[in-house]
């Protein structure tokens, strides 16, 4: 019988935070809403790998066996990597880490609390097609955040609608850097065993040497695809065997601008070298998309031309 870990109860005092309720639960962690001492809401992520530790009552986390203790401690490293990756990034479109601490024999990451829903929920809720305007708005902003992440030599490696949060004002926040790895000292980034089928690039399955900005570009393209399709594209490992993915251009021709569809197809190329090689390249391509069938006045046209010349 599977035993699940007990979440911390509402009202529980954790350091100088007060737990309100559980927001979400994954295989490795529980996320709570809590309040800090000034009454501001925060999101607190508790490292709690369900296969390794057990908390049937109280607050202290105990490994479910001696050998699991080793794995538990080892897995903590990944949690630290996430904290370390995020701590350096202060960008409106990337989740902000506020604190990091140890308690109850495990570790906690405190993040800014955002109101809204994930892009995944947004996709599932919608009856009709997402507008091109919406898709572009979300992804242009998101790419600003991702660009900052890459500037810090960090790859996200798990970009998907479930990890893109939409605030109530519609601005996106990139979440969950649990898979993030730094491409630091080694010519090969660290092995990244976590990936989500459909959104993970082919090089994430085997060619870890070839991970790069283009890997996150694939995830971004797949997420845009999912916005249009309401389902994920065919998983990359299957595509490598036998590619059944129908190009966005074919499916949605006429419903969305050719350029947007071409950009999505470009991001989803199996060969990493054939994709946009940087977020900047991708942003430029998206920016180049001409608004569909909108008559521009002579001056507006001139302005647009000038702006594209100077790259604003």
């Amino acid at each position: 019988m599977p035993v699940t870990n007990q979440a911390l109860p509402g009202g529980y005092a954790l350091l100088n935070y007060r737990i309100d309720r559980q927001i979400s639960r994954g295989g490795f962690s529980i996320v709570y809403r809590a309040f800090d001492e000034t009454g501001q809401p925060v999101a607190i992520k508790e490292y709690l790998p369900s296969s390794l530790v057990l908390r049937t009552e109280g607050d202290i986390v105990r490994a479910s066996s001696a050998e699991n203790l080793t794995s538990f401690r080892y897995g903590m490293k990944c949690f630290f990597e996430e904290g370390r990756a995020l701590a350096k990034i202060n960008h409106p479109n990337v989740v902000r880490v506020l604190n990091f601490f140890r308690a109850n024999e495990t570790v906690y990451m405190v993040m800014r609390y955002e109101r809204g829903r994930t892009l995944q929920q947004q996709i599932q809720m919608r009856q009709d097609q997402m507008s091109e305007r919406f898709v572009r708005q979300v992804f242009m902003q998101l790419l600003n955040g991702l660009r900052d992440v890459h500037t810090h030599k960090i790859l996200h490696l798990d970009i998907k609608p479930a990890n893109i949060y939409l605030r109530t004002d519609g601005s996106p926040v990139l979440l969950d850097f649990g898979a993030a790895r730094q491409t630091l000292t080694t010519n090969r980034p660290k092995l990244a065993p976590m990936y989500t089928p459909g959104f993970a690039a082919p090089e994430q399955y085997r060619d870890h040497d070839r991970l790069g900005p283009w890997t996150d570009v694939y995830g971004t393209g797949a997420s845009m695809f999912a916005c249009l399709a309401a389902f994920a594209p065919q998983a990359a490992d299957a595509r490598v065997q036998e590619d059944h993915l129908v190009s966005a251009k074919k499916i949605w021709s006429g419903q969305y601008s050719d350029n947007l569809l071409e950009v999505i197809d470009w991001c989803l190329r199996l060969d990493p070298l054939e994709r946009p090689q940087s977020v900047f390249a991708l942003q430029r391509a998206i920016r180049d998309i001409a608004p569909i069938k909108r008559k521009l006045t002579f001056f507006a046209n001139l302005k647009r031309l000038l702006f594209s010349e100077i790259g604003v």
Partner: protein
Amino acid sequence: MRFTIFQESRKGAREVNQDRIAYTYSRETLLLVIADGMGGHVGGEIAAQIAVRLFIERFHQEAKPILRNPLKFMQETMLRAHAALGSYANQFSMLETPRTTCVAVVVQGGHAYWAHVGDSRFYLLRQGRLIASTKDHSKVQYLVDQGLIKPEEVLMHPDRNKIFSCLGGMADPVIDLSRRMPLKDGDLLILCTDGLWSVYPHGEMATMLTSTPILATAPQIMREAEKRGGDEGDNVSAIIVRWGPETLADEPTTTENLALGQFETQVDATVTLAERAGGQRDLTDDEIERAIAEIQSTIQKYRK
């Protein structure tokens, strides 16, 4: 290849061990490497770890099954480690750049090659006599060379810890490369950090190791070195290899059973925040505390 190998790193009286040691070999080639990190907090450890790890990883990429050019390999790896430390310091906006010494030895085709930066040493001993060694990139060594102080004054000199070349830091490292040195059976190869050579003259080590099994004698030397270091003793690290089939009581390692493309690697046990995934090892409480402290200070730094 046949050889007997011993490696150990002891903390001495220090709170952390900033030395890193490792060896790895393919069927045809053996690599030994030691780094002695410097720089506040976790910096020194990270620097030494990065240098050693980079050596091991590059070796596994390039030794297929032999290195095309051992000296070039060592030089390039050190330069890369230097660059990596620079970008690491940058990335974490560290006040003090992590720096490290480094000495590496490659044995291939019956020849030894070595390279070093700083004051970690390599000795090659034959029949109890020193036939080759590295020359420290240190201020005191410079003073000795200039005839300003006598060799025996080195250990007491106030500037004995100052080195002018290291990996990491502002200046590009001075990397000394050896020539190709043919080895004979029974030769002793010793790599060590200043924690060992400053308390153990190589003559004494040579005498102790020459006619005894190294796997029995070397641990004694290490324990004794730590004792001699006393209350302020530095980290003590060494890799000792006796080349050729062992005639004494040691069990030599043979590489003849290794398949092509196969490696054996031994990295010292003390680790580290930045360890690669793969070798599953749990964190100590101390490492957890340090990781958290590092993250918190980063959060502070980037808070606008």
